[in-house]
């Protein structure tokens, strides 16, 4: 499926309108859930960090350590898991329903390639939008961390910011973004493939959706390990 997506990506007609609609669905549609989970992840990491660093009386380091954890691991992985739940499952269900109700066959009989029309825009949109969501996740995570550490626990603002700058480099953010992009491609290809090959009516679509979410989630963790081993 991945190679078919690549093949059909570079053949006309290019469906810019469908691509933009998919970008909106994946990106704008996931924004609220990413802000919600990102801010609470940053906040809870700050709480745990303050407790742990408090033992050593080094609470100010919480900002740097949470920033590093978010940029390198938590943002790409958690954002990808959230997008899998929301977007990957929706892709499997929507395309699976189209398959079992013969809408995909109808598209083929109308001489339109379903992979090019349905799958290519979704895969590219997720590949591009997940890194953006990952950066937003990191940013709101740090806002959550700031609120807990600086506002609530009165950690010194200057030290909080200084540790972030000294712990984290631009390559940490770039590597996280690359990870998110790979996860985006993987989860959307899995979601679309499972839907595209669904059969057996409503039960088949349900099974395709479940398998897509489970497979994509496992894929995220496995790829995360491999990419981390390669990058850091």
């Amino acid at each position, binding site marked *: 499926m991945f190679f078919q997506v690549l093949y059909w990506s570079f053949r006309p*007609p290019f469906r810019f309108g469908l691509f933009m609609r998919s970008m909106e669905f994946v990106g704008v549609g996931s924004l609220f859930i990413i802000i919600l989970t990102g801010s609470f992840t940053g906040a809870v990491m700050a709480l745990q960090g303050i407790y742990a660093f408090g033992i050593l009386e080094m609470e100010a380091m919480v900002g740097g350590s949470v920033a590093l954890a978010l940029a390198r691991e938590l943002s790409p992985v958690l954002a990808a898991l959230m997008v899998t739940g929301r977007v990957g499952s929706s892709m499997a269900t*929507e395309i699976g*329903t*189209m398959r079992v*109700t*013969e*809408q995909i*066959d*109808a*598209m*083929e*009989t*109308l*001489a*339109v*390639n379903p992979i090019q029309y349905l799958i290519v825009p979704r895969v590219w949109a997720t590949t591009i939008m997940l890194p953006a969501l990952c950066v937003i996740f990191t940013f709101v995570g740090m806002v959550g961390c700031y609120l807990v550490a600086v506002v609530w626990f009165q950690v010194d603002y200057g030290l909080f910011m200084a540790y972030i700058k000294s712990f984290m480099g631009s390559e940490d953010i770039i590597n996280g973004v690359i990870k998110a992009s790979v996860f985006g491609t993987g989860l959307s290809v899995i979601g679309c493939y499972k839907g595209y090959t669904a059969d057996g009516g409503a039960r088949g679509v349900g099974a395709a959706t479940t398998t897509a979410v489970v497979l994509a989630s496992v894929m995220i963790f496995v790829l995360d390990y491999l990419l981390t081993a390669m990058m850091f």
Partner: protein
Amino acid sequence: MFQVADPIIRLMGLDKAFGSQAVLKGVNLDIERGKITTIIGGSGSGKSVLVKHIIGLLKPDAGQILYEGTDMVSLRPRALSEIRRNFGMLFQHSALFDSMDVEQNIAFPLEEHTKKSRREILSIVKEKLSLLELEGIERKTPSELSGGMRKRVALARAIVLNPQVIIYDEPTTGLDPIMTYNVDQMIKGAQEKLKVTSIVISHDMASTFRISDYIAMLYEGRIIEFGPPDAILSSNKEEVQRFLAASSLPPRAIVASGGEV
């Protein structure tokens, strides 16, 4: 077996198996240009599999499908896609795109395959809707339509590129008798107005004898009888007679009445 004068499509020795289950076992059939040919057979006899071969959705394990003399089986995807523009297919459950409204469904093939302006496309959509007596439903979604209306919208979408061949997959299944009659009239009307070749898949005998110029019976993966309705009625094959006898309406009466009820 009966020979047609001017075949537009020729199926020659089609074999298809799914795993160990052979569905088509050497199907030979000629489809006459500009006529309605109905393929009958019991549930699970492979009728839908056969039409999916005709339109290239499935590839046979062996055999040829000639459209105007071109073997569709050996074509590359792009060439097959070009040939498919000569076909329109009406699916059993209509298969309208449920994310689009009626107008978008019918406009879809025009937007994909022509360079017509938006105004021209909308005018063609309006014309096709009017041809099928469906004015005023452009903004409705497929879920807001009745079964019969969905069939007609699907037909409008199938004929919008002016195809040479229209394939109907069990067009009357699940419809009440009046709606069945209306769909029969729709098929006949489309054939008379558009001069297309029609292939109908059906196990509804009353409907089959009302509309068909030729009837082919598919039984255990082979065409066991083929010819005009009268020839099917007088067939001496036991499977054909058993199939006719099991139908709820007496086909001879329908043929005698010229298809009117």
